[in-house]
């Protein structure tokens, strides 16, 4: 560590905490000794706490070791202190323990004189928790804790108070006492839970700053801007005035950005973990909520950094979950446990996966559906009479995940029984799929008029028109991370769903009320459900149900309202 870095670390509690976690005792001692122009061996026995019951216990080395060993408790206390004055005083007292120069104490003293804590009047000093725990437990008394008698008192006494009766408001002060000074915590009784919530709800708030960080070593892509990755930040901005940024490696052709006005794209130098952590280190304090995408290992150091610099900041983790991936995760891994423990809201897009993970994992998993948002205020009401005999699919055609060949084969086999029906495929075609397509056309030359590749449709309106025109939406995926966005879009357009049995197939078809499912990879099975659905007498009723069901369950605005309440709803 350079001397300049060391001095920088002393500028705030967050950075001191980081230094204590990152560097060893000897290195910090050496830097402090250099700064004070003292011999490290002498500094180790320098008294930093004159009032310590045993003088030996109050010397520099024990203060620093205590800070390093119990850093999590110090961090916790820092997060528990009420008011900015308490935190500044705390930072200065810790600064003094790292570099015992009087300027830290002077600053702590002068801020204490401002004395901005709300409670005036008598505070009863607690000399021994052991003897006084009964009346403390009552939670009605104002309490004074002298936290300067022993090195560890600063964090142990408030921690014990929390154990006996949680919720006391803690105000730290360094004030004159007799001929010297003392460090004390004024503890005000916990307010009744509901009163506290109401009080917080009534306080005016400034817009929250939200940062959505791209996964892996990449940036956000254009298509993601109009999926949940971009729509959720956009709606948080639109509905609640949040200041939102999507951050990742540099990219180009963000034509969809015009659909999500107000959302900023910020580019890092590249998509590496280093670039992400550096960005977070710089911005953490100004970020109220960090939005991730998937429980990927790359995010672990990022969240560690975020919580280090902003312990009160929130983390929203949509899991992008499918059972294949989730069941492979070693959730007992200490790094993973720490990561998940630091996330404030964890969600899946489907209820099946939500239930599965809630039973399996020791964290609360929420359900935030992959909803549909139209980006337009125009009236939207699918009319069945205007629909044509079209089966539509949309996605990355020919990819292993989408298993487009299953759909093509199934349609080819069903085509004889479905005269007048066409299959429309919207989306970019993977290059590797070309060979298969050549074989397909060779085998079914008569289908060239009935199977149409529409290409990648960038204009949302044109895409929605395709949905509105179709009667059936087909999805033959091998796996999906939750409920796919296209399902919500299709249901909203009154499309009946033909789907493979991915994790959330029951949700996609509302248990069979607006669609049918076949086994994954089963061409004959998929052919059968296509035939059944297209010939269904009640297809119109199913289509109406699809739309009604989508409005109830896939409304993105509702999903965002729920999310906002989960992230920023005041804690009880």
């Amino acid at each position, binding site marked *: 560590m350079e001397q300049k870095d060391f001095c920088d670390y002393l500028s705030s509690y967050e950075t001191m905490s980081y230094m204590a976690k990152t560097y060893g005792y000897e290195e910090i001692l050496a830097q402090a000794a250099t700064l004070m122009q003292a011999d490290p061996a002498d500094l180790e026995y320098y008294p930093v706490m004159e009032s310590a019951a*045993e003088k030996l*216990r109050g010397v520099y080395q*024990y203060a620093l070791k205590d800070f390093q060993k119990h850093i999590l408790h110090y961090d916790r206390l820092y997060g528990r202190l009420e008011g900015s004055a308490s935190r500044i005083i705390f930072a200065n007292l810790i600064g003094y323990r790292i570099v015992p120069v009087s300027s830290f104490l002077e600053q702590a003293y002068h801020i204490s004189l401002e004395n901005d804590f709300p409670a005036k009047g008598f505070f009863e000093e607690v000399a021994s928790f052991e003897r006084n725990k009964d009346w403390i437990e009552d939670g009605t008394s104002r309490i004074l804790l002298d936290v300067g008698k022993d090195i560890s008192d600063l964090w142990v006494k408030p921690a014990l108070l929390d154990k006996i009766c949680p919720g006391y408001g803690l105000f730290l002060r360094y004030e004159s006492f007799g001929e010297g000074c003392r460090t004390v915590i004024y503890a005000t009784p916990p307010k009744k839970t509901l009163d506290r919530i109401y009080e917080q709800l009534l306080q005016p708030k400034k817009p929250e700053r939200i940062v959505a960080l791209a996964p892996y070593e990449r940036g956000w892509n254009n298509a993601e801007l109009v999926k949940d990755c971009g729509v959720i930040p956009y709606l948080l901005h639109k509905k609640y005035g949040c200041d939102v940024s999507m951050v990742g490696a540099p990219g180009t052709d963000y034509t969809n950005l015009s659909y999500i006005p107000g959302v900023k794209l910020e580019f890092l130098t590249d998509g590496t973990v280093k670039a992400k952590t550096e960005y977070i280190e710089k911005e953490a304090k100004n970020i109220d909520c960090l939005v991730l995408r998937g429980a990927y290992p790359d995010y672990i150091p990022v969240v560690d950094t975020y919580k280090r610099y902003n312990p009160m900041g929130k983390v929203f983790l949509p899991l992008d979950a499918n059972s294949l991936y989730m069941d492979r995760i070693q959730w007992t891994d200490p790094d993973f446990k720490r990561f998940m423990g630091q996330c404030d809201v964890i969600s899946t897009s489907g209820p099946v996966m939500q239930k599965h993970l809630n039973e399996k994992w020791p964290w609360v998993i929420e359900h935030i559906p992959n909803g549909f948002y139209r980006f337009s205020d125009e009236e939207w009401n699918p009319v069945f009479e205007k629909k044509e005999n079209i089966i539509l699919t949309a996605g990355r055609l020919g990819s292993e995940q989408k298993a487009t060949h299953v759909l093509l084969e199934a349609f080819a086999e069903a085509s004889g029984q479905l005269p007048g029906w066409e299959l429309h495929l919207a989306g970019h075609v993977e290059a590797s799929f070309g060979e298969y397509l050549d074989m397909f056309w060779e085998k079914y030359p008569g289908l060239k008029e009935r199977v149409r590749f529409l290409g990648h449709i960038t204009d949302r309106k044109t895409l929605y028109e395709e949905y509105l025109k179709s009667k059936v939406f087909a999805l033959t995926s091998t796996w999906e991370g939750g409920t796919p966005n296209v399902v919500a879009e299709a249901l909203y357009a009154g499309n009946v769903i033909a789907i493979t049995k991915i994790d959330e197939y029951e949700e996609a078809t509302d248990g069979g009320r607006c669609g049918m499912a076949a086994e994954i990879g089963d061409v004959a099975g998929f052919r059968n459900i296509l035939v059944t659905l297209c010939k269904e007498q009640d297809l119109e009723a199913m289509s109406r149900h699809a739309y009604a069901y989508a409005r109830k369950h896939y409304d993105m605005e509702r999903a965002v309202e729920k999310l906002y309440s989960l992230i920023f709803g005041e804690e009880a």
Partner: protein
Amino acid sequence: MGDLIYRENQFIYTEQGKERPLLDCGDYLSNKSRISMHCLEDQDIYTLPDLLTDIRKQGPCRGNDAFAAALIDVLLAARLIRTSQPVRILEYGCLGGKFSYYLASIAGAFCEASSLVCACDRMDMEWMEQVADVKKLPRVSFLAGDYGDLPLQKGYFDIILINGTVDFVDPCKVVSDALRLASDDGILLCYTDASPLLEGVFKLFFEKDKREDYEISAFARLMCAKAEDQSWTPWEEKQGFEKNAEKHLRQAQDLLMGDTKDGRELAGMLNILKQDAKTAAATGRVGLKLRLQEQKEKLMDCERRKRP
């Protein structure tokens, strides 16, 4: 700082000039019983005097772990010497096995049918090496588990050593858990080494007149108490989390069924359920967590419907 001396066939603990006899070996030194008591087929003759002499030789060196280990040996010997039954010992947090060695040695010396469970949140190879050095091993098991929630049978252990060389994140949960695992007449030993929160918490559980304190060094202390003398229950336990959560579920149900649904009331209840769900998740109450989640969703729907 305390000291352990052996004088006139007695192990005596001294601190600030005050003496406390821990074990009078007089009668036992003339008792040539072979131990381990339940392993008579063992050809090695190891007698009570041998054992006591070994303890005497081994320590104490003041102010360090060996002193603590010698003290633990004497305190355990004073208890084990009066019983011919195998005992069940739990070391709560064993790390590198420094104390496991002493615990295994003394438990095995008295009765090889005794059992020692060493629990830790991770396996340390050093632990295996330490235990492998024990001459007369009792039944030793290693358990990897979460501190505060060890998957062991309630009331199973006669002796539990809480090893405070481990930096427990939540010592309150650890002591609570140790008390859960201790038998009705079980004893708890708590060794704290620069772990003031564990020390403070243990003192909350056992008041001064209900425990024995031994000062090892300026920063280390050994405390000993009977499980039955517990004089404090942590807030969460006392409040009866589950009972309260059930009450909140009922209140939420009433709120949903009622005609007047005040927005603030809904928001307040929502937050309470949210907290309950988090606590339920953190404490492994899956069924309760799912029910709380379900009710929370209903409240959220209701709250949304109320909005203009």
